[in-house]
């Protein structure tokens, strides 16, 4: 493999060194993210690899403590739970990820439902959204896989860095706080959602959401856009919450969202649905 070169620019290099040693503040992360976007051909991880090798070398001077057995079991169980859908796919129960085409964009065809009346007092858009939630087929698995892969970049800026970039560069970003709804398990839900209609790009920062078991349920984002059709929330993609810590998740809207009125999360079957039966778990709106 041909090795990439480090950047010539001193500031660029300083930021790579800082990231590998003491970390970057938000402003520096934005700056480095911009540089990496503009220079995708540079070696973005070589310095970090070097720092890791040095760390391991220094660690030789101290005894290594084994991973506690209960923690080891927990980590192994997490992997097991997260990969059951993949094993199902590989055994023929699901179309292989690599070959399944990405289907057309999906929206939620909504109809009025009795369930909507109890929650309609907040906002019209939310009421309309709730009213239309029903059961439907799963989303194309490839959409989910592609979205996950986009979150895994190493040489590319991470989701948190791209979020910072969007905040720094876009002039039309809306930023709303997540709030838990009726379900007590989501009472501590927090974080925010940002969205730029001009760039059709957005990110969710999520805290306090219960971890999901990907083999049985995944979180799914819905975007209410009255400018399109208030009764047809746009599918914003599915994702997993591996722990109660903070995560940054890119929004993968399946249709253009020009004037979002609200963002909402539901828990759905693995891969997501095209029409949700709800309930809404968290909501972000002006």
């Amino acid at each position, binding site marked *: 493999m041909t090795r990439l070169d480090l950047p010539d620019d001193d500031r660029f290099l300083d930021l790579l060194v800082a990231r590998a040693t003491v970390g970057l503040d938000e402003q520096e992360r934005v700056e480095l993210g911009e540089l990496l976007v503009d220079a995708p051909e540079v070696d973005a991880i070589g310095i970090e690899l070097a720092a890791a090798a040095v760390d391991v070398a220094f660690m030789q001077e101290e005894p290594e403590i084994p991973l506690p057995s209960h923690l080891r079991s927990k980590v192994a169980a997490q992997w097991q739970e997260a990969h059951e859908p993949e094993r199902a796919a590989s055994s023929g129960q699901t179309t292989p990820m690599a070959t399944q085409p990405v289907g057309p964009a999906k929206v939620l065809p909504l109809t009025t439902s009795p369930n909507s009346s109890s929650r309609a007092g907040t906002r019209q858009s939310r009421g309309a959204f709730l009213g239309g939630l029903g059961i439907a087929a799963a989303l194309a698995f490839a959409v989910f896989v592609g979205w996950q892969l986009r979150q*895994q970049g190493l040489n590319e800026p991470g989701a948190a860095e791209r979020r910072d970039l969007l905040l720094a560069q876009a002039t039309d970003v809306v930023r709303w706080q997540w709030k838990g709804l009726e379900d007590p398990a989501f009472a501590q839900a927090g974080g925010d959602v940002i969205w730029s209609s001009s760039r059709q790009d957005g990110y969710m920062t999520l805290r306090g959401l219960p971890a999901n078991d990907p083999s049985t349920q995944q979180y799914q984002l819905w975007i209410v856009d009255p400018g399109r059709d208030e009764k047809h929330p746009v599918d914003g993609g599915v994702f997993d919450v591996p722990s109660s810590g903070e995560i940054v998740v890119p929004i993968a809207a399946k249709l253009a969202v020009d004037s979002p009125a609200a963002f909402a999360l539901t828990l759905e079957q693995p891969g997501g649905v095209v029409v949700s039966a709800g309930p809404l778990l968290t909501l972000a709106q002006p």
Partner: protein
Amino acid sequence: MSAPDPPKSDDAPILPRIAAGDSAAVQEALDRFGGLVWSLARRFTRSAADAEDAVQEVFIAVWSNAGRYDASIASETTFVSMLARRRLIDRLRKKGREPVSESIGYVAEMPAEEGKTPQQQLEIDEASAQAEAVLEELRPEQRDVLRLSIYGGWSHQKISEQLSLPLGTVKTHARRGLIRIREQLGVAADEKPATDNRGDSK
């Protein structure tokens, strides 16, 4: 620090098997990298609970990025350590702290060290040998900067004050040292002599 052994290649790469969904490889990864990640997490956190959360986050990152591992660039141990450090540094920055550099209370709660498996020891030796070779060549002052910066997690400003060095010198030592080690890692991967003296020319 003793003279390093020559770098050894991985006999049985684990990460590609994890990327392929091999659950047995996950157990091997926990055997091989569990202690390493736990040691790093303990150093970067201040409580057992925080360390445990951090370890889980790190291994999620390892599983997610296993398919991106490239054996021609670094050893698996270095790659896993990089993922761990990135996650741990990010957690620290969010909490506005530096890593702990001394023993902390909860360490005593942990079980006594069990013997490392031969595989664990081999992996650690392999990952450290390339870096140690360069560290041995550095002046003590440069090596101290790398130790405090990377192992201690100190800010460059704090290192400057502690070692009575100009801040610019601290930054230069850190940068040159890391560039040299990066080149050494590349040499090990490519099995050819280094020709780039960029780190010393700045």
